[in-house]
């Protein structure tokens, strides 16, 4: 049911539960109440809802001030305005002062594709994970969006919640499971290749793994919902059991999940071959979400097309 709402609508529904978890919760937005799925929250909890207008930098600072006074604050705007426009406010007023604002970036990745590159967010993971004290979470689907939102309500430090994907959102989790910040989910195991994905592309990773399995490869999938702090233990497990690790993200291939995984695996004794899939350092043309996912090679077929030949090459070498 949640998947029909997309990640924003799902966040809005999850927000309705927040006052039960923390009576001091507030939600603040920069003129994106309905876009963030918060119309019902604002109507139900008018005393907990703050709109600062189209002023994202001020929103982050105001949110930090509210946290200083003991409130638990979720702040929403477009992902790219959270990460790029407000980067210095995030760095100083959230990171440096360690004030636990939960900054929620909507329409991350390619999901606002028809609006053009100004509204895509392909650099936000890079910015957020480079700031000390930040926790960075990118849920795989709507179920995980609910779990991440509720988990963040009882998490102390500053955090960035990256929400994207299409409407309806693809489903990864069709039953309940354990969600813990900083602990990736090993969805399936594979000895030839393991996909490490984050965000809405995880569903495509699962699909790609199924296609490869049908072709005779052993393919695993990790949902790395927490990009920072990254689950080093799980990455080491994957590096041990798979010949190839493929990172997949709806983000520039520079400095996002792929870089985070590579940084970790560069330190292990016998590193696997690492392939990084993402948006290849360009501003995509405006187009519908599904079209852009195919264009950037991040659909299941696109992933298989990138990885298949490399698996063949690896087999020939061994």
């Amino acid at each position: 049911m949640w998947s029909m709402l997309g990640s924003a609508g799902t966040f809005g529904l999850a927000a309705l539960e927040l006052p039960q978890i923390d009576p001091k919760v507030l939600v603040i937005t920069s003129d994106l109440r309905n876009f963030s799925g918060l119309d019902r929250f604002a109507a139900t909890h008018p005393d907990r809802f703050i709109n600062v207008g189209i002023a994202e930098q001020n929103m982050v600072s105001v949110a930090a001030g509210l946290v200083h006074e003991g409130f638990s604050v979720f702040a929403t705007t477009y992902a790219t305005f959270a990460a790029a426009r407000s980067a210095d406010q995030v760095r100083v007023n959230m990171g440096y002062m360690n004030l636990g604002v939960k900054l929620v970036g909507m329409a991350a990745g390619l999901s606002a594709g028809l609006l053009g590159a100004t509204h895509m967010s392909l650099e936000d993971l890079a910015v957020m994970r480079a700031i000390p004290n930040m926790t960075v979470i990118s849920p795989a689907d709507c179920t995980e969006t609910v779990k991440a939102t509720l988990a963040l309500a009882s998490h102390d430090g500053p955090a960035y919640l990256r929400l994207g994907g299409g409407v309806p959102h693809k489903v990864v989790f069709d039953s309940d499971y354990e969600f813990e910040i900083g602990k990736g989910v090993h969805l399936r195991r594979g000895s030839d290749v393991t996909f490490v994905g984050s965000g809405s592309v995880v569903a495509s990773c699962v699909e790609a793994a199924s296609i490869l399995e049908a072709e005779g490869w052993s393919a695993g999938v990790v949902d790395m919902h927490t990009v920072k702090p990254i689950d080093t233990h799980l990455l080491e497990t994957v590096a041990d059991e798979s010949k190839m690790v493929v990172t997949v993200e709806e983000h520039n291939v520079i400095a996002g999940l792929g870089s985070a995984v590579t940084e970790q695996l560069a330190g292990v004794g016998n590193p696997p071959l690492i392939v990084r899939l993402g948006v290849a350092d360009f501003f995509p043309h405006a187009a519908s979400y599904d079209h852009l996912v195919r264009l950037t090679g991040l659909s299941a077929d696109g992933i298989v097309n990138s990885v298949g030949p490399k698996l063949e090459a690896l087999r020939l070498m061994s």
Partner: protein
Amino acid sequence: MTEYTGEFRRLADVAKSIRIDCLKMALAAGATGTHIGGGLSLVEIMAVLYAGVMRTDPSWVEWPERDRFILSKGHGAMAYYAALKQVGFVTDEDLLTFKSDETFLYGHPSKNLERGIEFSSGSLGMGLGLGVGVALGLTLGGNSTSRVFVVMGDGECNEGSVWESASSAAHFELSNLTAVIDRNGLQYDGPTESVLKMQDLPDMWTSFGWNTTVVDGHDVKQLYQALHNQSDGPTVIIAETAKGKGVSFMEGNPSWHHSRLNSQQFDAAMEDVTRSSD
């Protein structure tokens, strides 16, 4: 020169003591140099805030009813630290560590609640938004006693984020929020009006919905009265000051925005400051 009596005499003496501490810190910092000019313009503002207006308690740093202070112009740190000494958060020995390698008294304030530094700053244009959030939080939390003071620079008002925050403070009718602008007329690259004309600064604030008062920023009595006034919305006090105030060779000279003070200059500056009657 204004002749003060009673409470105002005391505040003027505190200001003189802060000014002397700033010079000592500048000398101790040695070759690294300090933001001495903008520190000295702030002296009376900090003296009146900490010794005459604000509610603080170094023995109970998280006293809920304390007033909150944000030095948005973080480069005014010297006068801030010297004012913290006046109320007992830091010592004379601490002050002399300013800008040394292991100090907690950074070139720009870094959050340190035990020492009375509640907020980090340094990147201009962020303190007012933080102050809006704190003031809003106090109101939402039912604290109608504490006030929030944000000290900014006039050059800082170039930053667009200042005006986002100014709009929101008026929108939320934050009567517990007071901003003080150290209007010393100089920024890094020269006179504020030649670097970026700010039109009429008091009119700008008034048009953004703030109660605006212009005072002589070196007159402790005017500052005291303006800082005690509260109205039904946010208040801004534009404190007209002189960069390098109190030291003849620094006053109004932009090269003292950030500079090294040698021992001869220190002696001359101390003579200026100690000789003045207020």
